[in-house]
């Protein structure tokens, strides 16, 4: 223990130096702060007898401290006394720049106590250079920390401060190294992870690469297959489009065969089409070695084609030359190698086949080729059906056009004469209203007595008359003139750009033509009334022109009416005589006896005249009776008889249409009625029957009986009279029978 006084005791000095030496050597024994402090303070406390030691370091020198303003307890021995490990720099213990010691006897002692369980003793505070302070505690209140001891320890604490700073630096370095190690560790880990990932990734990529390589190879193969398939399909598409556009069946068949051949690379092919009605396949087309073998026919269930028909699917023969069911001739067979035949199908089954052949013996069909051609054949079938359908439609269309044209023709033409009809005529009138056609001439013609002809000679004859008129007009008045039949017996002609003289000239030409015709056809002369008109500035309306022409025609018709009708009666009489050649003179003979009887009956002269006219035309209806019945040699059948009996009514209608005999039409109708009511057509009896009819019936029967007929000879007068008497009260008026017999007798007497 130092006592602070001058002392030159060498032993004491040696002891002090030795202790300092020991303390000095205890400094800096470790770069770890706590170990360094522990070594130093254990020695210090042991040798100096301190009960507590603490090292406070300003935070600004402390490694890793965040609070730079305070101080931190970095070491304390024993820890039992530790109360706080952080203090502000404002604490009194940090204000002792040169160190101090304070005893618990000092009232400010507690100001320097930052520990627990220290109440008594001495606190010594020694600065640690700029780093902080060392706080020591001795249990002794009388501990004297004198100047010599302070100086002795200053050097030691300076060294300790330096060693502590070294520890801090080491700690910083350690922290940094640790941080760096961590970073390095993290980097290593990251590196290892990366390497592992790279390795894994490399492995994955390697595996992927292998997969990709395999995939690429597969893709190449697939692509090649697809390209080939695409080529096929493209070809198929192009070909099919070409086929679909072909509607001519023959051209189509050629295209189908050629295209199918191109799909598999052969020029040799053929097409069979099935005739469903005959059940025969007929080769419609051949290409290559089949080009000269067209028209070959095969029953539908024979040969390779028959197999295709029965299976309704493609049949492939690898070598047709040794095919057992071959039906081709040996010379053809020998040339063939593989042959494929594919069905062409319609909605109801096989409609034909496509055959494709190789002449190279080594060339075989692949499944893909068969499939391809099969698909092609499906499309070709559609094209073929379409083409057939198209042909049928075209034919139907043509037929419809014909019908349309016919309808148009019919709608604009007269069916009988072939001339334009009234509808067209009226349209033409409207069209020719255009001034460019002016002047327009119109001729209106009317066939006189057509009704009489129709009624007396039948409509056939009437129609012949009309056709004759039409022919005559159309020949005379050619295009651009428009000739039309505008009514039953009316014709009209439109003459565009024709002046009035021109029209009148043409009317004259028509008249001449009729004259010529009547000369060559006296039995059916044409009587034509014609009127014409021409458009002028005062008569610009074409309808007005037509009306004027029509008026002119009627005017002409009135002027020539009597003569026409007279001519007509003559013509009818001639016609009646022509048809009554067997009874030629029959009417004239009857007129005599009838006149005699009429006189006996006291009938007036006018009445006798009418009766004679009636006698002449009583059978006028027979001109409408078929010659087969009229001139039949044998007895008439029931139907023929009924037909013959129709002449009464026919005569009635003819007479009604002819003014000259119109008034005797009723007599003509009833001249075959019987007294007892059993006659025809009305079944009148007794005096219901007009007297004129009863008279003519007697005369007609008598004359008929007394003249030859094809089926019998003529009766004698007596025989005839006997017959008359027999049918007295039956067929004939009994009074008149008697008077008639008298008249016959009187007539006979006069002639004799």
């Amino acid at each position, binding site marked *: 223990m130092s006592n602070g006084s001058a002392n030159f005791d060498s032993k004491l000095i*040696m002891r002090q130096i030795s202790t300092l030496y020991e303390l000095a050597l205890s400094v800096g024994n470790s770069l770890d702060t706590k170990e360094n402090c522990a070594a130093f303070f254990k020695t210090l406390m*042991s040798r100096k*007898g301190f*009960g507590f030691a603490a090292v406070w370091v300003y935070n600004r020198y402390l490694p890793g401290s965040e609070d730079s303003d305070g101080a931190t307890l970095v070491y304390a021995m024993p820890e039992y006394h530790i109360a706080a490990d952080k203090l502000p720099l404002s604490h009194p213990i940090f204000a002792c720049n040169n160190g101090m010691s304070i005893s618990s006897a000092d009232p400010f002692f507690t100001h320097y106590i930052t520990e627990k369980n220290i109440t008594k003793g001495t606190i010594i505070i020694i600065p640690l250079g700029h780093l902080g302070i060392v706080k020591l505690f001795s249990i002794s209140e009388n*501990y004297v920390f004198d100047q010599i001891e302070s100086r002795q320890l200053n050097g030691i604490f300076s060294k300790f401060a330096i060693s502590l700073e070294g520890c801090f630096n080491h700690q910083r370095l350690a922290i940094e190294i640790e941080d760096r190690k961590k970073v390095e560790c993290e980097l290593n880990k990251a590196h290892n992870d990366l390497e592992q990932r790279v390795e894994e990734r490399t492995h994955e990529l390697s595996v992927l690469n292998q997969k990709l390589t395999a995939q690429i190879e597969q893709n190449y193969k697939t692509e090649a297959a697809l390209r080939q398939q695409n080529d096929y399909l493209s070809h198929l598409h192009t070909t099919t489009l070409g086929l679909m556009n072909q509607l001519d069946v023959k051209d189509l068949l050629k295209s189908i065969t050629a295209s199918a051949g191109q799909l598999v690379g052969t020029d040799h092919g053929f097409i069979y089409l099935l005739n469903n009605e005959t059940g025969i396949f007929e080769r419609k087309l051949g290409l290559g070695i089949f080009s000269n073998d067209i028209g070959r026919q095969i029953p539908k269930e024979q040969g390779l084609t028959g197999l295709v028909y029965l299976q309704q699917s493609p049949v492939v023969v690898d070598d047709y030359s040794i095919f057992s069911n071959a039906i081709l001739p040996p010379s053809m067979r020998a040339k063939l190698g593989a042959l494929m035949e594919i069905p062409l199908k319609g909605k109801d089954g096989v409609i034909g086949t496509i055959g494709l052949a190789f002449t190279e013996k080594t060339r075989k069909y692949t499944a893909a080729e068969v499939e391809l051609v099969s698909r092609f054949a499906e499309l070709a079938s559609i094209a073929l059906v379409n083409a057939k359908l198209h042909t049928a439609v075209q034919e139907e269309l043509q037929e419809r056009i014909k019908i349309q044209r016919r309808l148009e023709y019919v709608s604009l033409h007269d069916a009988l004469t072939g001339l334009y009809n009234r509808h067209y005529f009226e349209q033409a009138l409207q069209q020719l209203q255009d001034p460019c056609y002016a002047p327009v001439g119109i001729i209106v013609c009317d066939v006189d007595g057509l009704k009489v002809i129709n009624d007396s000679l039948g409509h056939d004859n009437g129609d012949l008359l009309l056709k004759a008129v039409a022919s005559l007009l159309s020949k005379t008045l050619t295009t651009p003139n428009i000739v039309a039949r505008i009514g039953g017996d009316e014709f009209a002609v439109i003459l565009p750009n024709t002046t009035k003289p021109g029209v009148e000239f043409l009317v004259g030409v028509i008249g001449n033509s009729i004259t010529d015709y009547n000369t060559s056809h006296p039995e059916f002369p044409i009587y034509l009334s014609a009127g014409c008109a021409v458009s002028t500035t005062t008569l610009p309306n074409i309808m007005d022109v037509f009306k004027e022409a029509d008026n002119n025609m009627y005017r002409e018709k009135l002027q020539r009416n009597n003569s026409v009708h007279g001519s007509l009666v003559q013509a009818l009489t001639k016609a009646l005589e022509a048809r009554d050649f067997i009874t030629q003179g029959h009417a004239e003979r009857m007129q005599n006896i009838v006149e005699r009887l009429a006189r006996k009956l006291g009938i007036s002269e006018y009445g006798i005249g009418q009766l004679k006219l009636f006698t002449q035309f009583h059978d006028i209806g027979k001109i409408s009776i078929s010659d087969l019945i009229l001139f039949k040699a044998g007895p008439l059948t029931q139907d023929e008889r009924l037909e013959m009996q129709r002449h009464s009514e026919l005569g009635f209608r003819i007479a009604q249409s002819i003014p000259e005999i119109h008034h005797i039409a009723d007599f003509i109708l009833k001249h075959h009625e019987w007294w007892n009511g059993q006659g025809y057509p009305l079944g009148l009896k007794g005096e219901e029957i007009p007297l004129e009819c009863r008279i003519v019936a007697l005369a007609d029967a008598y004359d008929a009986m007394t003249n030859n007929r094809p089926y019998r000879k003529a009766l004698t007068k007596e025989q005839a009279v006997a017959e008359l008497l027999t049918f007295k009260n039956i067929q004939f008026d009994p009074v008149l029978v008697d008077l008639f017999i008298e008249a016959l007798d009187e007539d006979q007497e006069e002639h004799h």
Partner: protein
Amino acid sequence: MCIYLESADIPTIVNTIRDLDRQNNMVIILLAEKERPDISALIASLNKEAINFMGGFFPGLIYDNSAYDKGAIILILPTMGSPFVIGNIDTACQLPDFNPLLKQFDTDPKTAFILVDGLAAGMAELLAKIYHRLGNSVNYIGGGAGSLTMQQSPCVFTPEGCFMNTAVLVFLTCESYVEAKHGWQPIMGPIVATKTRHNVICELNWQNAFAIYQQVLEADSGLKLTKNNFYDTAKSYPFGIVKEQTETIVREAVAVNDDDELVCIGTVPENTVMEILKGTPSSLTASVTEVARNCKTSLIGKKPVQSLVVECISRSLFLKDKLSDELGAIKAELTFTPNDKVPVGILSLGEIASAKDGFLEFLNKTVVIGVLYE
């Protein structure tokens, strides 16, 4: 309460303890090295009786003014719970957490009673750790167990077993006064232990330790110091570690190894400034008398519970029959009633003492007297 058993057989010990009024106090069993019982069997027997105990065997026992090299002392002390076992003190021992046990009691511990394997290395580190943990909150008293043969073996025990390289510690609820003195005087120094290895001094003043020691002893004693007669001479010339505020700490060299290094009881830190000491029976006895007197003084106004003496076995070997003088001096100072059996303690392999006045040290060739009081 304290009983000496001449016969340390297990039934006697167990029966004696069973018959004692122990209340909740722990039984301290101090065995003499000679004729000691099978400690494992003793532990098993005591455990059967559910006796809370700790103890050790020592080179000798002190009981009622006499030293014994056989027998057993049964001591009942007011302890706080079971003893803590601190093993591996020769390497890097870890102190247990004392707080969970101490929190079970209403009062703070006042004294720590420590028995330790006296031949274990790392004693200084152990005591530094204990002091670091507890500081001056308690007084420390204890000593080193083991055999005088210097052959290390399991020597401290608790109900958990008998251990080597181990300390057992129990906290006492009574206050104490502890003081240590040795009476040895420096004859040479300072001298620096420039190279040491735990308790082995390799070099002194950068020279062969044995050679230096030999020079000093031969010069002072006039005797020839050899390895063979080493202890006979060396026991009179221990080393003293210089302390400025308190008495020098004695380190006794007990042997010379093959490398001419001095083997001591207790750690000698490297670069320790030491002196070579020399004592006489009278100086030693005088020191003990002073300590006993101080203890007596400390008990003024207090109710003594038990006095304990930890005296280094080497002192008894040095003093021989003069030991009774020391013990008599103690008895003279600390006997308060006619029935007091004073002193009671052990002849130990090193001593432990601290009286709230500084660093806890492992002592040699020293007498530690502690008086427990309420």
